[in-house]
Every structure is written in C-alpha cells, then in structure tokens.
C-alpha cells in the first residue's frame, strides 16, 4: 500500500472574513490560498513555514474542524468507509464521526490538550467510549500505554503528575486509540527539550513502522523535519511555495524563501552561505477595497534600514516584500515543484 496517495488536497482555500463594526466584510484573511498536496500512505509528509503561513489552518481543514471556502480533499479507498462521497467537504455529520476514527491528532502543547481533571485511563479511553468500543476497555488502554512506553501504574494518575515528554506520550496514545491510518502531528516536539524530543521522535518512528501509519508532520524546526519526513512542503502566506522530497529540498532549494529558511536555521557548520530575510512577517489580510487590495511588493522602510545595517558584512539578503509576488508553481525537476520563474 505504501506510496499510494491516501489523501489528496486540491486547490484548497480557506478565507476568513474580517468584518467592520457594521458587520460588512472589509477584508479577507487568506489563510489557505490554493493548496495542492498529495499525501502518500505510509510516509511522513512535512509541512514547514513560519507563524501565520497557514500550517495550522491546513491541519484544521484536513480534519474538517473548519470548513474550507473552496477546493476539496479527496479521500482514498483506505480511509473511505463506505461514505456517500469521497470528498471530505461533502461528508455528513455521521460520516465525519467515522472519518475522524481514521485520522488522529497530536497537538503542540500537551498540557493544553489533556484535561487536568481527568485520569489517564479516562483520557486515553475517551475516544474508545465515544465511538462505542467499550469491550475490554481497560486492557485496550493498558495496551495503548504500553505502546508509547508507559505502563499500568500510570492509569490512575492526573496529567500534572507527568513530565512534558510523558504527557506527549499520553497524547500520542490517545491519538492511536481508534487505530487511525493517518496521524496529524502539529509541532509535537516544539515544547520539549532535545533529549526528550529524541525519545518522542524515536517513538513516532517505531509506531509508524509497527502500524504502517501515515504522518502529516507540521513543524518549524527544520532539523526535526529533515530527520522525520520523506516529503516536504514549504508554505508561505497560505500557499505552498516549494514541494519536494526531503533530500532534494535540503540539497537543492529553489524558492528564495526556502533558501532563507534553510540558512536561518542555526547550525554548527561554520562558513556556510548566509542568506538573511529582511523585514517583518507580512499580513495575510487582503482588503476587498480595490485601493488597498494589492499586497505590498515594494520595499518597506524597515527593509531599507536593515539592508543598510548589514551592508558589507558578507551576508546575502532577500527582501521579504519581494516574496509577496506570486508566481505559478512550476516543476523544476522530478517530484520537485517550486514557485519560481521557469528557466
């Protein structure tokens, strides 16, 4: 089964309206603006980008926690449970419940994701109870805890009695409870120390092997992404600006933003090429009013100031406002797409 697309995202858009005091729309936040991705089964698909680029909205639309404005998510037969349609946006309420058995989520902050007043046995068992799988509940919960390296002795404890890494393990155990095919991991290790992070990453790899899981791995930490993912999409302002196999992307980045991102990641290598991205994160708000509608593509004052400051320091730079210009996604080599001017 491995290698077949399990989920296909087609032209997915999610626009949040911005209203003024009278309740009329004055602008749109284009959180997702035409995302095309194909997620292969049994692999790890990485999504990187900075805050506000739409990573989390993409995750929420994939789970249909929010409804997309347009576009569709195609479900493959592996996760299609005799649904009336293979398009996620057409599923009824009942079907959505079934669908969510097939897809598990691990959120960034384990403290926020665990109810402080519930026992671990209730937390891990809750999805089973909700979906009516109450037979051998206790044994199943213990088995799930064993899977993530915890044990029976942890059943009657509260989340606050665990360390950060253990809490994340509990969240993973809960995500596994309904035997999902896909697990969406939204920054699963960004709240953890490197040593604990290493444990969790190892655990995730073991579980993937054991249950043939497909991971959608959202992160901003490129070293983690490089370690975990088979394929990778870089998002910027609600669009995928580059998509390629991890090795290819890390060795041969094409989009200027990807280059800057790779260079900005602190590393031990000395004397590598430094590319700095100047200016602040642009606002994803697009005004409906024509006069304001254009995203700023000329250099801002801050960028001018920063250019002046780093001149003569041997640092290459990319002006962020130049990234706002939208280019079509072109194929640069096999399995490698980027929004660059085609040669």
């Amino acid at each position, binding site marked *: 089964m491995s290698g077949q697309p399990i989920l296909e995202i087609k032209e997915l858009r999610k626009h949040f309206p911005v209203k003024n005091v009278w309740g009329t729309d004055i602008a749109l936040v284009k959180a997702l603006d035409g995302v095309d991705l194909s997620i292969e089964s049994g692999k790890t698909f990485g999504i990187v980008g*900075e*805050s506000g680029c739409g990573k989390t909205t993409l995750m929420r639309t994939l789970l249909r926690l929010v409804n997309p404005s347009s576009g569709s998510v195609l479900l493959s037969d592996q996760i299609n449970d005799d649904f009336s349609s293979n398009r996620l946006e057409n599923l009824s309420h009942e079907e959505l419940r079934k669908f969510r058995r097939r897809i598990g989520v691990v959120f960034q902050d384990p403290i926020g994701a665990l109810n402080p007043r519930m026992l671990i046995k209730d937390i891990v068992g809750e999805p089973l109870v909700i979906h009516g799988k109450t037979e051998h509940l206790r044994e199943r919960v213990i088995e799930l805890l064993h899977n993530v390296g915890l044990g029976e002795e942890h059943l009657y404890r509260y989340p606050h009695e665990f360390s*950060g890494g253990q809490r994340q393990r509990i969240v993973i155990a809960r995500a596994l409870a309904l035997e999902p095919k896909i697990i969406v991991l939204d920054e699963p290790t960004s709240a953890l*120390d*490197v*040593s604990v*992070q*290493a*444990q969790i*990453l*190892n655990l995730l*790899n073991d579980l993937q092997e054991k249950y043939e899981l497909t991971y959608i791995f959202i992160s*901003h930490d*490129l*070293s*983690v992404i*490089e*370690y*975990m993912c088979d394929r990778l999409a870089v998002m910027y302002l609600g669009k995928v600006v580059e998509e390629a196999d991890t090795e290819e992307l*890390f060795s041969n980045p094409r989009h200027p933003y990807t280059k*800057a*991102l790779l*260079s*900005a*990641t*602190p*590393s*031990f290598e*000395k004397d590598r090429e430094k590319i*700095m*991205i*100047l200016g*602040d*994160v642009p606002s994803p708000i697009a005004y409906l009013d024509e006069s304001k509608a254009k995203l700023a593509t000329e250099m*801002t*004052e*801050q960028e*001018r*100031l*920063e250019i002046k*400051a*780093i001149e003569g320091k041997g*640092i290459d730079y990319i002006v962020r406002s130049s990234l706002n210009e939208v280019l079509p996604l072109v194929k640069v080599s096999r399995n490698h797409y980027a929004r660059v001017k085609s040669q």
Partner: protein
Amino acid sequence: MLEIENLKTNFYTYDGVVKALNGVDLTVKDGEIFGLVGETGCGKSVTCYSVLKLLPKTAKVVDGKITLNGEDITHASEKRLREIRGGEIGIIFQDPLSALNPVMTINEQIGEILALHQDEEVNELAAEQNIPAYKSEKWKGSPGVEFTILAFCISFISLFVMLGQAAFGLPFIAVIALMLLRDYLQKDLPDSALDLMVIEALSRVKLPNPKQIASSYPHELSGGMQQRVMIAMALAGKAKMLIADEPTTALDVTIQAQILQLIKDIQKEEQMSVLLITHDLGVVAETCEKVAVMYKGKIVEEASVENIFANPQHDYTKALLNAIPKGGKERLKVPDVGEYGAI
C-alpha cells in the same frame, strides 16, 4: 565583567529544599558573547535571576560570590540593585509580550527606564536643544492613579445624581474636565528631550518609523518588533552587560536570525558583554564565542564554541549533541539525563 563563583541557590518548597544551583562558576569577559546552554530545569534562568536578585521569595542565594566589574554585588542593597538592573545589566526576557506592560505605550515604557537611569543625559539634551526635558509628569504617576481619580469622580457624580442633588456633582465634573483639558493641551506639546531619546533608542534597534512605534501599544507590534523593543529597553540605560534569557525562543527562525544578527551587531558597536541563555545549541554555535553547558545546577563543561562542538569532553555534552537530529535516518541516541532538580 561578570564573575560568578560557587553560586548556590535553594528553593524552599513544601516538598523540601530544591537545590537549583549547586555551585556555578562562570566568568563573562568584557566584550564577549557567552552562551549558557542546558535543558529545562537545569538552572540557566535561575543563574541570571540570582545575579539580578529577581528570584521569588521562596528562593535564596545561600552561598557564592557575584562580582560585577570588580564590585561585589552578592549582598548589594536594594537601592544599588535598582541602579544595576537596567543601568549596568540590561535584560531581555523570553516572551516579549508578557515582559512588556500591555497598558503602557512603548514611549512610556522606554521613557521610564531613561528617566530612572539617564536623568542627567535627558536634562543635558533638553538644555542643549532648548526643549522641555519631560513632556509631563505623567510618567511618574502610574496610570492607575489617574484611573482611580476618574472612578471616584464618576461614582460621586452618580451618587449625587441618584440623591437628586446633581449640583453637588459639579466640582467632580470640573475635575474630569480639567484632566481632559490637561491631556488635550499636552497632546500638542513639542517633543521633549525624553521623547527624542526614546526615538533614538528605537532607531538603534533598526525599527522603522520609530515615532509611530513609540506611541503604539505592545499588542500592535509583531513578535519580532516586540523583541526589538525589549532590546531597545535593555540598552536604554546604557548598560554594559546584557543578559538575554532565551531571546528568540518565541520567534520564527527567519525572525530569530534577524534578532541574533541585531544582538551581534549591537554587541560589536557598543563593546558590550552578552550572556546568552538558550536551550538551542545551534543558536550558540551561530552567535557565541564561549559556551558553558549546564546540567543539574552545575556547569559541566566550558569551552570555546569551536572546541565544544568538535570535541565535547563531558558525557552530558556528548549526549546532548547526539540527541539533535542531523540529516540521516539512523535512530537518535537518547541521553540518559535522569530526573531534574535534586530534592
């Protein structure tokens, strides 16, 4: 510049004594960027709070000696400490949004530091340019005082209105009117010397349009801008030493690269010493000259940046370096770090 010898800090909790620092020895030389790395709970932040005596009441420095520029500040008086904080040692905290006061404008917050530590310079500039030193006395009273007066007046007015003796409310209305009138008159005052210095402080950290930023509130700025404001505040008192406690943890990598570059530039320009506290070994490799690795309240290894990554000596340092995912797909080595905090 800063010398710490055998520093021991204990936390007295209901569960017993937590020995957060077990004899820390550290020397930050003039004009040097010194990195302090370690995992959560190893005592990095407690070290810097012990230096500035910003510890909570449950904590106590029990042993050790802290020397700043040859002066023993271990048992400095509160008055002296207030001069040191901001005046001689500037500090940048991890989360700029919670470190900045949400109800004060940037102008007021930076102005406060300048008025406390740079009073002479403000007066000098005022005399030189023949402008008032301070726009108003407003910065001296907290905004709470004005609010209290306003609340009193309004409650008295409504009380008298309820009693049918509205005429008695007139003096209170007059007070409100006077306050509004004062604000209105002060609105169009020319820039004071303090304002000019705030604007200068903001432009030093490469913020565009400093005048507009000075009059805005923290929530109106982006994360990167907030951190720049924090740096401007830390530098405003002309401190010769800067303690940066995880200055870039809350930021995106591209913004992190900008902020680190800014800290490096300013350090070079002003010949400052910087103590950079972080959990990210990559950040240390990019920024620092010397680095100390902390583990369980002790410094286990101290070396120059080149040496520590090429040739780590202590087992913990080796384990920490091994835990970082680096390309390849081989299983991560999980360091055995044991439990945190000796009780």
